[in-house]
């Protein structure tokens, strides 16, 4: 018996990649479509259970389109049972939007809810889940009692003690879940895939999100397919990468480059090395020390790669390098200026570099406001 474990779809949520409005809308639509493709995958693979371990949506900021698409998808796949665990971002808007709850959509509550989703030769395949509320949830784990003959799947949305999160989210004390007879701890909240042992019996898994939304979510994204052997009760898992686009943030050291074209060449080499597909979102991070008088035109550099990828941005994290000795005896205004700036006690080193660079470009009649 197979089932899909996914989480953190965050439909209609904000993109953090600084995409312009239209692309942002496109990405949201792509995420929605990826979710629907996952359902189609389930149908093709004859998977009859989909477990959504939280954050299907992202607060109440969900468009009618998304809600209707999810609702229609659930209704048009009556042979697939959807088990929906609300996450810290989910609210009741989705439920509220439904006139009638489809029979194949199942919920959890703030107390343990269980469903039998299959059978093995030994027992049942049970799914347990609970939604954390604002109260102290520490006693929840004690109330969880499982039949060891069953294949027990427990689903929770939160972060294990291992992770730190900026969101207000429940911390799941993994230790409280060990040795309880859990075969598969289906977690949600962390946006990158990880699979590790829970205890001697079971494993715990974060499937990650279906699509990255920002440059802090680089790498592969998708869902996990769990296949439970009915005879033995053992399971195998596979990660299915389904994201429409991947996100990359290659770091390029442009130290020593004298001009933008040299930097472009460095970047090209790096991109070739990383073999980034064309429809990716790419943030090129420039690092290293460059001369203060180096021609570094970020828009120009970006323009070289705009056509190569779906989205490109260039973050300039280079540091201006100033060789003060050159300007020690420079009688020109530029020299005087550099010496004046370098001797300033109110500017930071970084600011000094920026000011010098700005002044030099201005004195040279170049654009200094990029």
């Amino acid at each position, binding site marked *: 018996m197979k089932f899909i474990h996914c989480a953190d779809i965050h439909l209609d949520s*904000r993109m953090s990649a600084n995409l312009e409005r239209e692309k942002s809308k496109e990405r949201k639509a792509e995420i929605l479509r990826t979710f629907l493709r996952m359902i189609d995958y389930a149908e093709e693979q004859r998977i009859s259970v989909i477990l959504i371990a939280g954050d299907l949506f992202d607060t109440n900021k969900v468009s009618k389109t998304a809600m209707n698409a999810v609702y229609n998808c659930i209704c048009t796949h009556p042979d697939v049972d959807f088990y929906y665990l609300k996450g810290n971002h989910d609210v009741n808007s989705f439920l*509220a939007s439904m006139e009638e709850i489809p029979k194949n959509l199942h919920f959890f509550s703030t107390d343990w809810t269980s469903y039998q989703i299959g059978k093995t030769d030994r027992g049942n395949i049970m799914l347990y889940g609970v939604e954390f509320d604002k109260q102290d949830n520490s006693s929840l784990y004690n109330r969880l009692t499982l039949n060891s003959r069953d294949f027990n799947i427990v689903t929770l949305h939160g972060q294990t003690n291992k992770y730190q999160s900026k969101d207000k989210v429940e911390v799941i004390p993994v230790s409280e879940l060990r040795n309880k007879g859990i075969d598969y701890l289906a977690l949600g909240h962390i946006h990158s895939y990880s699979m590790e042992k829970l205890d001697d019996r079971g494993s715990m898994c974060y499937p990650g999100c279906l699509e990255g939304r920002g440059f802090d979510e680089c790498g592969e994204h998708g869902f996990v397919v769990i296949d439970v052997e009915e005879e033995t009760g053992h399971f195998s898992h596979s990660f299915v990468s389904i994201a429409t686009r991947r996100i990359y943030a290659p770091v390029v050291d442009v130290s020593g480059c004298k001009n933008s074209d040299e930097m472009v060449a460095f970047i090209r080499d790096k991109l070739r090395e990383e073999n980034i597909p064309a429809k990716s979102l790419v943030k090129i991070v420039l690092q290293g020390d460059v001369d203060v008088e180096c021609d570094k035109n970020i828009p120009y550099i970006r323009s070289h790669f705009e056509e190569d990828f779906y989205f490109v941005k260039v973050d300039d994290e280079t540091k201006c390098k100033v060789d003060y000795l050159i300007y020690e005896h420079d009688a020109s205004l530029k020299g005087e200026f550099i010496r*004046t*700036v370098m001797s300033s006690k109110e500017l930071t080193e970084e600011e000094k570099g920026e*000011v010098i660079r700005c002044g030099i470009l201005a004195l040279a009649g170049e654009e*200094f406001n990029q």
Partner: protein
Amino acid sequence: MKLISCYIEGFGKLQDFKVDFQDDVTVFLEDNAWGKSTLATFIKVMFYGFFGEGKKALADREREKYRPWNKGVYGGKIFFESNGKEYELRRVFGNKEKDDSAGLYEVSTNLTSKDFSLDGIGQELFGIDEASFLRTVFVAQNGIVPEDLKTGIADDISAKIGNLSDATDDINNYENVMERLTDEMNRLTPKRSTGLLKKLENEIAVKQNEVREGENLEHAFAQITANMEAEKENRKNATKHLKEVNEEFVKVGQIREKLVQKEQYHKLLFEAQESEARLNRIKESFPVSVPKEEDLDRMLEKARQRDTLVPLLNDSRLTGEETIKFEKLTATFAQGYPGKDQLADCRQNINKWNELREESLAKKMTASDQEKLKALKEKYPKGMGNEEQTAFKIAAWNSQDMIIGNLGQKEISFEMQKKEHRQKEQMKKSLLILGILLFFAGGVLLGLKLMDSTTIPVVIMIAGILVAAIGCIIKPAVSSAELAEKEAEIAHDRKHVEGIKDEVVAYLGQYGIACPMERVEAVLYDMKQDYTQYQELCKKEEEYSRYQFESRLSKAEQEIKAFLQSYYPDEASNHFTETLNMLERESEQYASLRDRQEKYQALWEEEKHLKEELNNFVRSINAEEVTDFTAILLGFKQELALYNSANSQFHKDMEALSQFMENNDVEALLKVEADANMRNPDEIHAAQDELNRKIEETDEAIHAYRIQADTLSERIMNVAEAEERLEELVAVKAETEKKYHILDMTKQYLKQAKEAQTARYVAPIKNAFTKYYHLLTEEVGDEFRFDANINITKDEEGGYREIRSLSSGWQDLIRICERMALVDAMYQDEKPFLVFDDPFVNLDAKKLSHARAFLDEIAKEYQVLYFTCHESRV
């Protein structure tokens, strides 16, 4: 750099003007309007070109101002030395700059030199632009320098002073750079509404408001959702309660239904019984059997048909008279009656016969004509002359009558004429005799003088002459010859008359006609007339016999009679038309009567048959005999309708009853009784309505909440966009602030650098200024201060005053010193020439007295071109 000489072909008022310059001071002491300023300007123009080329007003364009008045060649040449080489710079000025021509030559080789560019030679030689040249090397009265070039110290001067390489543009670009930095800062500034930072701030505030609003929206959304859930719960409860009420309703309904069914059973039974009784009652109207409707309709149709036949039958029956007539005509037309064609043929024959008869009558001579013809024949047994002959004879007879008539007249006239002739002759004779007598008388008298006077004798003679004359004159009306002629004529006429008479008598005798003369004419006329008549009558007679009218008429009559007598054997008259008319009439009558008779017969047969059929039918239903079949059948029809209806109803009732009994356990139904505790269906229904209303209300409320939730959700989505945008804006703002800060710092530090740089050469300029000031004023000049921009201020009465606030004289003096100080600072190595265009004009006598020493001092190092118009300033 030194000027050697110049030649002006035409420049302003200077034409064909040559001057050689001294190495030290070349003085031009000339009157006003000689052209001193013109020469000074020529020199400037040769190196820097014209000022104000782009100005609109001609007066503002140097090119136009100095165009030669004589319209000759506009230009000249200047010889100068730089870095040990001598050059010739030649220029000719056109109407516009593009029309100018120029050339730079090395004097030693007369070859074109590329050591300096023709357009920028001034800049290249002096290292400063025109404005700076006019502010430094060109020392003029304050009014010479264009207003917009007067203020401040130019960058190129600063650069020169700073002894910077010609290759760098830093110091020269300083103002431009500061301006660009300022512009960029203004673009980004948070202090102005047009600044990007200000705009970002405003937009951020707007988005923050939207996001804050989003929180309210979220609260509202949560509230709405909660309300909706509550309403759903209410709905759920109401639905549950409704279900219970429905069940109660169903149960009550079932019992009531059973009761109703029971009632229904009784009703059905009763109805079936009632309908059976009614049916039986109606059936009594058909004691023998109940007819089928279609049979009844058919019979009714036949009855109606019969009803229609009876009047026709009566109409078609012949009256007694008609019967007699018919019999009679039957006898007449026993062998058949004539057809229309036969009658038409007969009529035609009769018409022909009539026509023939008329023609015959028309052509036949009348009895009188016959008698006339006979009389004529008798009258003229030998025939008669034809009309022409007779007419001729009549004419002849008439002519003899005329002649006779005339003859009488002629004779009478003749006699009278003869008598008159005789009388006239006699008279004539008488008169002649008288006249002769008178004449002789008179003559006698006269001759014989028988009278006293001669008058009377004369008169008598004259009278005698007159009478004789008269006698001569008088002639008879007819002469004797004429009389004789007339007599002969009369005789001829008589003879002619007699001839005619004889002829006519002979003519008449030819035809055996003798008559007295007095009747001849009449007889002739008669003959003529008779002849015409006779011819006509003969013609008639002949014609009549030619047509054979008799035989033809006879034949026609026979034919007609044969036809007519075939029907009317006794009819022998020739009143064919009447007979035929009668035949026609009677044949029509006969045909009509016969048709009627036949029709009547047919109708009678038909009626008889119908009646028989109807009787049989009626008897099959009702044993009674009837006469008015239609009425009775109509009655049957009504009854049958009632019967059928009753029968149908009965069957329906029985069907319903049996079906009911089949579908229901009647036995059980009969046992069902009403429960006293049972609620009234109306009450239950009211409760259902109430619950349905509540459910409807909750549905409406849920719907309304859903709409609100959708609206809020949409707005929340907008808030999400606003949040995204806010994040963007905040990031952009932070970045922009950083940029703004960097720009600000850059500006500040650039300014500091510039001030530091220029401060380095302020001291030498101050020293030089002090030196020159002392030369001109014998004063120290400590009260003057130079700032980093080489602006001079004077420490006076507790404050540093701008030079502009001093008198013209002091301004000129200070400017001279300033310029010389600048030039000293600018030109450390190769010294330029200086143009002094009466710079001391505003100095007082005391200072003027030092001017010479000043010039001498300057001339030690510089070539000076000194222009003045007054010896006192030489």
